């Protein structure tokens, strides 16, 4: 017998388990994973972590620096702005709005893009070529421009900016998925599954999707990064969140006048955007490398 009880601890790992075991062995990837979890927890439990309501004004404490600079007040960890609002609370609120927005966009795009992309790839003939060439045309327009045009059409609000960003990023995801599935369809195991009499859905579920995890992770990572950047850009330009909604890009734009008096007000939101992007990128890269290593 090949599997005997003496070596029972050496179980045969499924590809997912194997990828997970490789992922666990990479320190940076695991740290970034916990950082991602922490960011998501911050976004969920923002209300309970914030020391003050983000709109609460402290008229006696204006433009305080962060706690490690002289003249600060420990009650406001990262200082206050020109109306005496707590920077830390506003920063958390901003992270919540930007991060949930970007994650929502990524989830929506991945679901919609998978459905459209795979139907386009599995279809043949006129329908497929319509999708193909339409997407090609859409891809020539820069995404930010598309988002700007859409938001002018929809009207300015945070929800509309999310909608505009997701619509502007959708074509490239569909295109990416389409290309992945197209190359996968020419592989012999997919042809063999076809000869077994598989339906397209079964082909997709068992034959194609398990084998395109790596490109999907890369695509999703790119979509997420671009979503964060576009949401904040739209916020910065004043097309996205309105005054009551605090969003990282809008936060930078509002405090830009104060940059010589209190540079921290611009620095912290900028750092937050940078950290969100870099953490998610390292996390995605860790998954990608684990998947690649797991394949050979």
């Amino acid at each position, binding site marked *: *017998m*090949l*599997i005997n009880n003496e070596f029972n601890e050496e179980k*045969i790992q499924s*590809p997912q388990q194997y990828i997970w075991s490789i992922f666990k062995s990479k320190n940076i990837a695991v740290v970034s994973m916990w950082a991602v979890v922490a960011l998501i927890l911050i976004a969920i439990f923002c209300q309970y972590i914030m020391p003050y309501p983000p709109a609460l004004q402290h008229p006696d404490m204006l433009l305080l620096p962060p706690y490690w600079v002289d003249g600060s007040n420990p009650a406001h960890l990262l200082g206050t702005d020109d109306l005496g609002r707590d920077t830390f609370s506003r920063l958390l609120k901003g992270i919540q709005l930007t991060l949930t927005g970007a994650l929502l966009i990524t989830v929506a795009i991945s679901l919609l893009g998978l459905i459209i992309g795979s139907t386009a790839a599995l279809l043949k003939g006129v329908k497929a070529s319509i999708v193909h060439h339409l997407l090609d045309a859409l891809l020539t327009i820069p995404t930010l421009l598309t988002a700007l045009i859409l938001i002018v059409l929809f009207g300015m609000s945070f929800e509309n900016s999310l909608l505009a960003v997701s619509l502007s990023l959708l074509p490239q995801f569909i295109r990416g998925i389409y290309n992945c599935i197209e190359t996968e369809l020419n*592989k*012999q*195991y997919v*042809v*063999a*599954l*076809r*000869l*077994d*009499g*598989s339906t397209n859905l*079964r082909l997709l579920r*068992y*034959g194609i999707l*398990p*084998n395109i995890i790596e490109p999907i992770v890369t695509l999703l990572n790119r979509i997420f990064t671009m979503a964060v950047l576009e949401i904040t850009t739209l916020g910065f330009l004043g097309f996205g969140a309105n005054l009551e909604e605090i969003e990282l890009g809008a936060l930078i734009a509002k405090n830009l006048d104060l940059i010589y008096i209190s540079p921290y007000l611009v620095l912290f939101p900028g750092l937050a955007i940078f950290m969100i992007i870099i953490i998610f990128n390292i996390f995605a890269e860790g998954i990608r490398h684990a998947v690649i290593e797991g*394949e050979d």
Partner: protein
Amino acid sequence: MQTLLNINNLCKTYRRSNGIFSSTLQYAYRDVNFSLDKGKTVSIIGESGSGKSTLVQTIAGLRTQSSGDIYLQGQSLRNISVQDRCKSIRMLFHAPSESLNPKATIGRILTAPLKLNSNMTAIQQQQQIKNTLSLVGLLPDYLSFYPNMLSSVQQHQVALARAMILDPDIIIADEILAGLDISLRFKLINLLLKIQEQKGVSFIVVAHNMSLVRHISDHIIVMNDGEIVENDITENVYNSPKSSKTKHLLQSHKPDYRK
């Protein structure tokens, strides 16, 4: 006795454009006629580009012919459902490492054709899988393995099990011997012969190497530029080749171990 497979004037053309407005019709193969009896082996031999792979892919159902008909037990394949076609004609690909899904266990790979093409219960499926595995000489333990954990000849055995699991009438082997060394080739060939003896299946073998094929085939078809140049009983082809192409192939494929 009715012939199992009968191929009648099969042609495959495709357009090749040369320039913007003009295009010429090219033949992948044309006017192919042959028949195959139950339990017999026919080998298709030819240089690369002679249309033999396209021909067997058409028989397997991967491509469609431009004209002509394939008859399976007297019925045209056009009138047979995909399921029945799957059940009676199965194909082996030349590289099993590519034709077995790397993300599925052997068990799942073998269950898929049963699930899709038969009405067996789960217990019957298990029994059928076990029988087929023992037919190709693998232990049932391999069911929980992934394809990349097996050696290349074991992968061939799994691919053969997948082909045999529906008890087909015809198995098409597309250059399955190409990637193996001599001893493993013989192992695989002996396995094929054993299965043929037990189950009475017919083989269509596509090959480059003429001397290996001599051992297993009853009939040999030599193709050149999409046309059949020689179609005869094996010994006739080897002893008195009629066309110059066959002579050329026979000369160029003197195996190393006979020198």
